[in-house]
């Protein structure tokens, strides 16, 4: 604790030596990194180099092995095979502490700041000499670093109360604080507003100028093209391609787009075809649909009191027609969960009214709304949507506890539950041994299918999907979206909440934007929708 010498001089000294970044040895070199987990080969002989003064984009779908590779680099995970060189010297990164000593800092997608501590306390955590905290000196340093990055931060603010964009800025400052020379940003834009992304881009330019090496993990192509100097593409745990800086600068945006998509999907014709098919379907559907005029779900100036660390919901009014797929766009943590839960009845209405088929349901309990045909597919499928110790069969009827035909006079009827389990496992193509299999042993995708099967089986009228494809592989994602579409065609009114704008453009009839707990606008889906939604997302956001 604090016995280490403060390495913050390093930042300035490296600045002097970055005149010709391309000529130096790489800041970090990974050679033949292999890592397997039970049942998964997460990294398969990956080699790549990260240089100073460069933003190195690491691209790949979920499960391509990006996170594992970076966990290895940051000392959280040890590789099975392979070597790591820093400044040409072979090193072993045995712990996060060792990684920090080597000048490698990781900025996670979910912040690792302690929410109950102040900004300054978070920055002082694990750094500095001696026993006592030196608040005065630390305050000065914070001002200095914040100035260098062009950001404004209150050192005394409680971290948990700050916006995610600000928290990320603190994370970056924290890395510089420790004199890190290699900065790994894990999906840094996934939680940010478009404006926040712009600010991040500016910060990255300054970081490059200071001679830092930045690894930028993402699966968004346009960010790669806008901010990256060099691109490496991972797929199925392997490095499948790289684009050098010269190429990146020379090529046009369209060309690059195509090239990267090719790299990411190469060798999987099926999937490419599926994607193409999907595109056609959507095009066809958008024009075809006509909907009844009377709303199925109405929200009238709905407000929800925020729980600690949340934004809450303020004056949200909506009208959704039967069979419509209504999208909710916005950055994570802007009131999405509050909206989903207030419709489902999992949290109390602070003000306003919810009408379902003309009936006021704002005061009804979860089970009563369920009976009316309201369904909620939660985004927390492990902690909330399923009970891992119970079988798939029981999980499929968890919202029917006590009701016939699965229970008769309070007593369980295993035969009925098993039969229904078998039917749904077939229908939803769930890969499970049978209804008796413990759901905790299933993969994320199959767990999500169980949740969908439960919510959509017992005569639904309205379904709220909260991030329905979050963390799923491409195939399951397609299957889930297909299922949502199918249900809508059968007349189920759908609310799809997603942080993935492309998903919403793919699925929805209309898209609303939720920002800081307020609805900032509703857009009809169409060719101009993407731009309009993006506008709305920027519109009334402070930072």
């Amino acid at each position, binding site marked *: 604790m604090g016995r280490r010498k403060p390495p913050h001089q390093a930042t300035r000294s490296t600045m002097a030596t970055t005149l010709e970044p391309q000529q130096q040895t790489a800041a970090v070199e990974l050679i033949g990194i292999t890592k397997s987990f039970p049942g998964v080969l997460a990294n398969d002989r990956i080699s790549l180099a990260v240089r100073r003064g460069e933003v190195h984009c690491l691209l790949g779908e979920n499960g391509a092995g990006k996170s594992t590779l970076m966990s290895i680099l940051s000392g959280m995970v040890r590789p099975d095979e392979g070597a790591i060189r820093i400044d040409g010297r072979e090193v072993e990164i045995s712990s996060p502490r060792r990684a920090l000593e080597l000048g490698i800092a990781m900025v996670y997608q979910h912040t690792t700041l302690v929410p109950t501590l102040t900004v300054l306390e978070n920055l002082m955590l694990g750094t500095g000499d001696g026993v006592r905290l030196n608040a005065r000196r630390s305050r000065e340093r914070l001002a200095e670093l914040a100035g260098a990055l062009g950001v404004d931060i209150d050192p005394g603010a409680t971290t948990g109360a700050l916006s995610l964009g600000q928290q990320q800025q603190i994370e970056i400052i924290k890395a510089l604080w420790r004199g890190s020379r290699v900065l790994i940003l894990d999906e840094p834009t996934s939680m940010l507003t478009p404006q926040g992304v712009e600010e991040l881009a500016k910060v990255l330019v300054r970081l490059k100028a200071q001679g830092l090496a930045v690894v930028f993990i993402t699966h968004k192509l346009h960010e790669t093209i806008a901010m990256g100097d060099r691109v490496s593409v991972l797929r199925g745990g392997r490095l499948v391609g790289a684009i050098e800086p010269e190429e990146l600068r020379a090529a046009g945006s369209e060309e690059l787009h195509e090239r990267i998509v090719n790299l990411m999907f190469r060798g999987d014709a099926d999937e490419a075809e599926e994607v193409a098919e999907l595109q056609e379907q959507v095009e066809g559907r958008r024009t075809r649909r006509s909907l009844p005029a009377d709303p199925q779900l109405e929200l009238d100036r709905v407000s929800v009191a925020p729980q600690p660390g949340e934004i809450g919901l303020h004056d949200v009014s909506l009208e959704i027609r039967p069979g419509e797929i209504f999208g909710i766009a916005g950055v994570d943590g802007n009131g999405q969960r509050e909206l989903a839960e207030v419709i489902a009845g*999992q949290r109390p209405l602070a003000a306003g009214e919810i009408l379902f088929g003309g009936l006021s349901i704002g005061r009804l309990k979860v089970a009563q709304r369920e009976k009316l045909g309201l369904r909620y597919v939660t985004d927390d499928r492990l902690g909330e949507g399923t009970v891992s*110790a119970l079988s798939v069969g029981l999980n499929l009827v968890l919202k029917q506890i006590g009701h016939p035909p699965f229970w008769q006079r309070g007593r369980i009827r295993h035969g009925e539950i098993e039969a229904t389990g078998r039917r749904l496992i077939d229908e939803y193509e769930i890969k499970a041994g049978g209804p008796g299999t413990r759901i905790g042993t299933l993969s994320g995708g199959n767990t999500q299918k169980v949740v969908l099967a439960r919510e959509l089986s017992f005569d639904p009228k309205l379904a709220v999907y909260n991030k329905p494809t979050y963390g799923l592989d491409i195939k399951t994602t397609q299957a889930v979206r297909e299922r949502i579409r199918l249900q809508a065609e059968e007349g189920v009114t759908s609310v799809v909440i997603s942080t993935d704008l492309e998903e919403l453009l793919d699925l929805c009839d209309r898209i609303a934007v939720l920002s800081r707990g307020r609805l900032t606008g509703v857009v009809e889906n169409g060719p101009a929708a993407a731009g309009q939604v993006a506008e709305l997302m920027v519109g009334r956001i402070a930072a």
Partner: protein
Amino acid sequence: MTETTTAAAEIQSSPTAALAEPRARQLGVGADFLLRSVLPLVLAVGTGAIVLVAIGVDPIQYYKDIYSGGIQFGAWQDSVMRMAPLLLMAVGLIVVFRAGIWNLGMDGQFLFAGAIVSGTAPLLEHHLPNTLNLIVMFLLAGAVGAAWTIVPAVLKARYELNEIITTLMMTFIGINLAQVLVKGPFQDPTTTTPQTRTLDFRALLPSIPGTRIHVGIFVAAFAALLVWFLMSRTSFGLRLQVLGASVRAARHMGLDVPRLIIGSFLISGLFVGLAAAAEILGIWGYQRADYNPAFGLWVVPLVFLARLHPIGVVPYVFLLAAVSIGGDYAAQNANLTPRFTLLLVGLTLLYMALSEWLARRRELGGSYLPGVAARRRRAVARA
């Protein structure tokens, strides 16, 4: 999952989180049973022997004395009688533990219900027929035990106030209030010892013909069967299990979480109250002010060893009863304190935790903490 700040954070350890369901698939039922349930006992007995040797007592003789004092020569009848309150308390604990709630206030519930029973039974003794008096007393004890859980139950259900604090506080209040009652309104005027009036011998629980064993054991056995049925066959049992797995899941499934919390608390208090009635009306006939058998913590290891199974806990309860009855005899013979039994119980619990850890480390069985296993799987899935 979104990050939340922690102003109102709650302890996330729960009795169900402390205990994974046995994963017989990988280990085989027999090996699983040996590793998780028998090994801790064997190790505890072994360590106990070492301690005995260290203080100059012959462990073989000591354990022999436990056997002869707890089982042989009709002593098993005393052990069976001791089983009645222990089993009732174990069953009560199983109900709350299944719901993921720590009721650590059993001693207060037990003593307070006991004081009420031993105070009122002698008063009604001459006004009611014996059987009716006993039934009324059992009902009263159950009601009092249940009532003593209401404050923690409501505070948890309404304000999510941690039940470890509140049940511990209620237990202190209950113990002291029992003493106030015994020394005050219920004090036997014919003696200076602080104790209640003594119930007439004939007004106590009748014995099973041909034995000394009082019929309290039937109450306990019936309770175990009832809870087993409740847990495995009814919707209530499944609801409790969902609540025990995750409060958020229970809310999501539309379960009435506050009602389940209060209900499981009341049921557990009820059984603890019945335990007090069985002990007072079966054995003592009165309650002394300094009476506190502290059965509460003893029972915790048992229900864990039995993995929260109301029938599976029966042999462990018998074992503990025999060890505690025989332990008194053995301690007397060896000129030692009877509290040696506590050491054995504590060691068993420690070794149980240890064997769970061993099982997890070797990836033989499931994790001791399902939460950790799930998180580990998630970590792998994210990779």
